[in-house]
């Protein structure tokens, strides 16, 4: 009889090439390595300097997302920033030289790296997945162990398909109950981060469990796992189930026929054993969660959309005071009615079909307020085309929103899409750090529903008033 193990421990154990010791961390095998233009060029330079090859280009997949423009001019995407252009060219040259499949500009499979991995079926349960991007935690929604790595480690994986890793601790986040109308996966994860803090998950892999998690569709589960890093967690995971298998079935890179049946049979056992111990446990009730919005300069500074920002004298007052100053807000004030300059719907957190459907459902027959600019950026070209076929793009355009090509866009603001200094943006992205969306930009993170409601109102709005 083996010891009961958590989901994380099962995936970890199945990928250990050499156990860790006091002398060295474990050698952990990587099933899938996702690569993008921003964090890879220096890693390829190391390969060249040392005369190394990419060991497993078949387990490597590259795309262009962070610095790509989203505005097509004359039917073409033109990269205006010469430095970004050189970086994109470098990725193309590197992928060609090392035989890595690249979904580059003009490819229908291109998109945000964490959107296309699942979409193409490259992301599968029981895998280890890494990428030089902290939001790699997204793929944990499928029961994969997926985490972000630095550029040195990108080089390690390119050269060896392995990483040296110290085994993280485990944390259970159990959420039972039912999300109320107008409350989504984004609100749920913002509530989790508000509770445990932006460093609350440091050193841990979170497993999200409970009936509220089981009730989420795959896109909601991806939103939840995506923001695990915003609590400082190494990764976030959810046990695969019938919802997972139904979502993956038939995608181009998943097994077919008997191999699919066998895969599902094996994945069905990929869950935390009864009696397995977590190092830490946190419990929330879904019914108590309201639509959430951030008011400050980290994702833990979140409140119910109809609530008030902290009063002065609250704990963490120095940090709060800094945030108030940066955000131009007063202690104790309400956010409802706070004028909004920009609304951004998109990113690896909320740039998938369900997110666009939620926002479009609210925008239908309504209009973006005159004082507000709304940008809708699909997470991938496939999402873009599907949304166009389904009529969502028409709804956004008719409402006065801008409909763009896919990419990271205003989430990271290194591609021409920025929020101006001093402006307020309600954004479905994942980070509200100072300057994240542009120098001096003031970001309020929220769900697609809250973003859409705020676009209509031209001010922070409660989506429950528009359902």
């Amino acid at each position: 009889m083996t010891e009961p193990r958590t989901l994380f421990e099962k995936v970890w154990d199945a990928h250990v090439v050499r156990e860790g010791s006091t002398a060295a961390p474990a050698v952990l095998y990587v099933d899938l390595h996702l690569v993008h233009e921003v964090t890879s060029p220096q890693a390829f330079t190391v390969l060249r300097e040392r005369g190394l090859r990419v060991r497993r280009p078949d387990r490597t997949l590259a795309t262009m997302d962070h610095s790509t423009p989203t505005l097509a001019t004359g039917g073409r995407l033109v990269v205006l920033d010469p430095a970004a252009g050189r970086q994109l060219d470098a990725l193309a040259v590197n992928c060609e030289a090392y035989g890595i499949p690249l979904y580059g500009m003009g490819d229908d499979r291109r998109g945000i790296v964490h959107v296309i991995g699942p979409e193409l079926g490259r992301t599968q349960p029981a895998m280890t997945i890494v990428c030089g991007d902290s939001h790699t935690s997204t793929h944990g929604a499928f029961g994969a162990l997926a985490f972000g790595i630095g550029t040195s480690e990108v080089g390690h994986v390119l050269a060896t398909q392995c990483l040296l890793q110290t085994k993280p601790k485990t944390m259970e986040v159990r959420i039972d109950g039912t999300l109320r109308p107008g409350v989504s996966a984004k609100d749920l994860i913002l509530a989790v981060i508000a509770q445990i803090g932006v460093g609350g998950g440091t050193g841990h892999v979170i497993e999200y469990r409970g009936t509220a998690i089981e009730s989420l569709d795959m896109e909601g589960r991806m939103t939840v796992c995506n923001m695990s890093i915003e609590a400082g967690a190494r990764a976030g995971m959810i046990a695969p189930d019938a919802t997972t298998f139904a979502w993956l079935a038939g995608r181009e890179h998943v097994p077919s026929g008997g191999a699919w049946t066998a895969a599902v049979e094996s994945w069905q056992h990929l869950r935390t054993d009864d009696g397995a111990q977590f190092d830490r446990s946190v419990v929330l009730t879904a019914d108590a969660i309201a639509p959430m919005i951030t008011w400050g300069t980290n994702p833990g500074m979140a409140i119910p959309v109809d609530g008030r920002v902290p009063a002065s004298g609250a704990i963490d007052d120095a940090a709060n005071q800094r945030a108030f100053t940066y955000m131009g807000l007063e202690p104790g004030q309400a956010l409802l009615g706070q004028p909004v300059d920009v609304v951004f719907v998109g990113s690896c957190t909320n740039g998938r079909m369900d997110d666009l459907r939620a926002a479009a459902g609210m925008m239908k027959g309504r209009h973006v307020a005159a004082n507000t600019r709304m940008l809708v950026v699909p997470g991938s070209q496939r999402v873009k085309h599907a949304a166009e076929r389904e009529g969502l793009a028409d709804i956004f355009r008719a409402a006065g929103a801008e409909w763009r090509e896919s990419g990271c866009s205003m989430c990271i603001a290194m591609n021409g899409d920025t929020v101006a200094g001093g402006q307020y943006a309600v954004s479905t992205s994942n980070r509200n750090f100072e300057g994240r969306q542009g120098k001096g930009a003031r970001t309020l993170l929220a769900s697609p529903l809250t973003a859409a409601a705020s676009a209509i109102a031209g001010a922070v709005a409660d989506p429950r008033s528009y359902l």
Partner: protein
Amino acid sequence: MSQPWGPLSSHAVLVARDDIDTDQIIPARFLTTTTRSGLGTHLFSDWRYDATGTPRPEFELNVPASVGAQVLVAGRNFGCGSSREHAPWALTDWGFRAVIASSFADIFRSNAHKNGLLTIALDDATLTATHAALRDDPHASVTVDLAAQHVTLPQGATVAFAIDPFSKRCLLDGLDELGALLAELPAIEAWEVACGR
């Protein structure tokens, strides 16, 4: 890889803020580079320069006492946010060899140690005393003995700090992890065959 991490004795720059994220350490608009060098110019760019690009005289890196400092002292949860290795590249390019905080984000710490930037986590009370001592005397010195795993702080206290033995050895010897992984290639190849990869 970096030089072997030798003894360090230096004055320190105090940026007494919690949750300093990687977007503050180096904003994303500077990530379009294809090299590792020269990023120190952009370190803490949005705090360091105003809208016209003029240094803000009150920011800690712009005060004369910070010149030549090799130690950065911050608050809790330093380096949270993205996986960008540009953050430790920017810090080391500016001249820092160690960051002292009460905790570090996982990816930042991993990236830092791969670039010759030591992270030292102190308990909250010791860190608070360090902040106070640096406010009193910005020229006060910090001495780090990595081999012995202790740091002598501006308040005069010498305290032990934790570091995983592998990172310690890599830092002290100037080794890089890629070399260690390449030495595992036979085991990796055997594992791939055994496990159907």
